[in-house]
């Protein structure tokens, strides 16, 4: 058990190192000189060259690439992600400022998404091939197929423009800072993200529960006179295991959905920062963002692996 934990941990660290090297190489090998963009256009001739050299030195870009990497990685390990090319602020701080809103958005959406998806998936499985099953499956298919930005625009059109029920963007109305205001701003982005998460999750819950319900022990329970509810309880417990792995697979949906929805609803989270960095070619922010995604994906995979072996005694002893 301990050995498998250490192997997993080490392989995650190795993958993270690889990603770090890859991201670093990517920026240094990218076409175009980011330094050029930082020199004001009215500085010309020799002045311009001097200015460029000064910027280069300030950013440490005049050193050999290996030195740059070691320096960069050393700084990274002490939590220093460099400075934004466009506004000079430390990337670590920029990202940290955005962490709260993103966590709030993703956390509440994940929670609501699961609260919807688990019962809906179980109902779809137990009442298989009934109206309830078809309705749940249809809604989830549509929620997967209609892009969230289109749904977002429709929602803004209906609830903000036509009905004036909800604010169309941001986290707070100007001059207001209370919880009620925040909750109003959360309804649309969180609701749509929760919908996207539950849409993909429902399918897994349904097929997971169906698979368990078809197993011998369920038939045995029924044959021994157990109620269907009792059989379902056993089946649910056993399908829980596969659901934890699936939870790791909803990371992409959650993260990508969050970025798109942050953009539509002007939600001041990391996704919006990443899109800002994309349009402004702000490499340090993009690299910081890339590292943040890498850590998140690796940690979630690790948690999924470990909880898998905690829950299932067969996996626990087999390794």
């Amino acid at each position, binding site marked *: 058990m301990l050995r498998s934990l250490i192997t997993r941990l080490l392989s995650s660290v190795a993958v993270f190192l690889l990603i770090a090297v890859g991201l670093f190489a990517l920026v240094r090998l990218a076409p175009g000189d980011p330094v050029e963009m930082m020199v004001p256009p009215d500085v010309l001739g020799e002045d311009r060259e001097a200015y460029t050299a000064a910027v280069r030195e300030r950013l440490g870009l005049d050193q050999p690439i290996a030195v740059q990497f070691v320096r960069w990685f050393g700084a990274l390990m002490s939590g220093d992600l460099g400075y934004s090319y466009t506004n000079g602020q430390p990337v670590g701080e920029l990202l940290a400022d955005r962490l709260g809103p993103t966590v709030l958005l993703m956390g509440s959406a994940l929670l609501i998404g699961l609260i919807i998806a688990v019962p809906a998936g179980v109902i779809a499985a137990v009442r298989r091939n009934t109206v309830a099953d078809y309705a749940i499956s249809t809604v989830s298919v549509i929620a*997967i197929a*209609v892009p969230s930005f*289109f749904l977002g625009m429709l929602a803004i059109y209906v609830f903000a423009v036509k009905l004036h029920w909800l604010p169309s963007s941001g986290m707070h109305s100007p001059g207001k800072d209370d919880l009620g205001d925040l909750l109003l701003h959360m309804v649309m982005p969180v609701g749509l993200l929760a919908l996207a998460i539950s849409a993909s999750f429902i399918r897994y819950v349904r097929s997971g529960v169906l698979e368990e319900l078809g197993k011998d022990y369920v038939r045995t329970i029924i044959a021994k006179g157990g109620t269907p509810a009792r059989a379902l309880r056993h089946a649910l417990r056993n399908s829980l295991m596969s659901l934890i792995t699936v939870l790791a697979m909803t990371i992409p949906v959650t*993260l990508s959905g969050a970025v798109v929805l942050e953009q539509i609803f002007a939600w001041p989270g990391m996704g919006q920062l990443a899109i800002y960095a994309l349009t402004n070619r702000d490499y340090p922010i993009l690299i910081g963002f890339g590292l943040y995604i890498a850590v998140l994906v690796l940690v979630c995979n690790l948690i999924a692996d470990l909880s898998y072996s905690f829950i299932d005694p067969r996996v626990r002893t087999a390794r």
Partner: protein
Amino acid sequence: MMKRPSLLSTSTVNLVEVADTTSPDKLAVRRFLRNPTAVVGLVILLITVIVSVLAPWISPYSPTAIDLTAVRQPPSPEHWLGTDSTGRDVLSRLLAGGQISLLVGFSAALMAVVIGTLAGVAAGWFGGAIDTILSRLIDIMLSVPAVLVIIVLAGVIGPSVPMLILVIALLAWGSPARIARSVVLSLREEEFVQAARAFGSRTGFIFFRHLVPGVLPPIVVSATLLVAEAVLLESSLSFLGAGVQPPQSSWGNMLNEAQSLTVLSSMPWLWVPPGVMIAVTVLSAMAVGDGIRDAIDPRKNN
């Protein structure tokens, strides 16, 4: 040694021809055609593909022709879907956008399926360390959010359509690979595969004669779903500005250009058509995929 495989293969082909009327393939096609959702999906998808391929010939205007005398006009007989903020014809842009979206969708799905099938077959057949490494890689790939990876890459290298296709394919091969692997795990125990091995067939021959054809049916299902996924991904990325760049149009970036509240509230012709097209295309591809799955494996349906 060299002759035997070819003898075997000719005899198999003859058998299929004899059993023509009730071959599993024909039965599957018949089952597919009896599924109304799948047929409707297939028809819509075919129409979308044909119209998009013919776009340069049938679109009424050039998708990038600017006409500043006719800006943001509502739908009219001259411009069926109106014009955008620089006077470009929305219908022409919609057709051109479909071309890009479908190009990205189909080529990314095809690449992902080729990589996935080979990787999955190799993992299932060889087992051991190859299987462990590939399976681990698949697990990681499946949990990587493609949208975010492409945002980082587009920000650093610059956005482009080939990059989009390549990255989507490289991140999407996990699901066909997982399917191919599980099918090969059971195929390798089948008598005909055992026999081929006992004859001393080369690995390459077993791969392409026995294993790849065996995994193809479920892989086709996975491919159709990947097309849907890739079309969605492309539109999300183009919407975010990391995909197809203006002035070239794509369903996603048409929605991006319509993000302002004024456009949202008073110019629905600018953002409703591309949104509907994405949804309809993705839904029909998913319907076709589900239809093929039910057709080749009728047990799952009931």
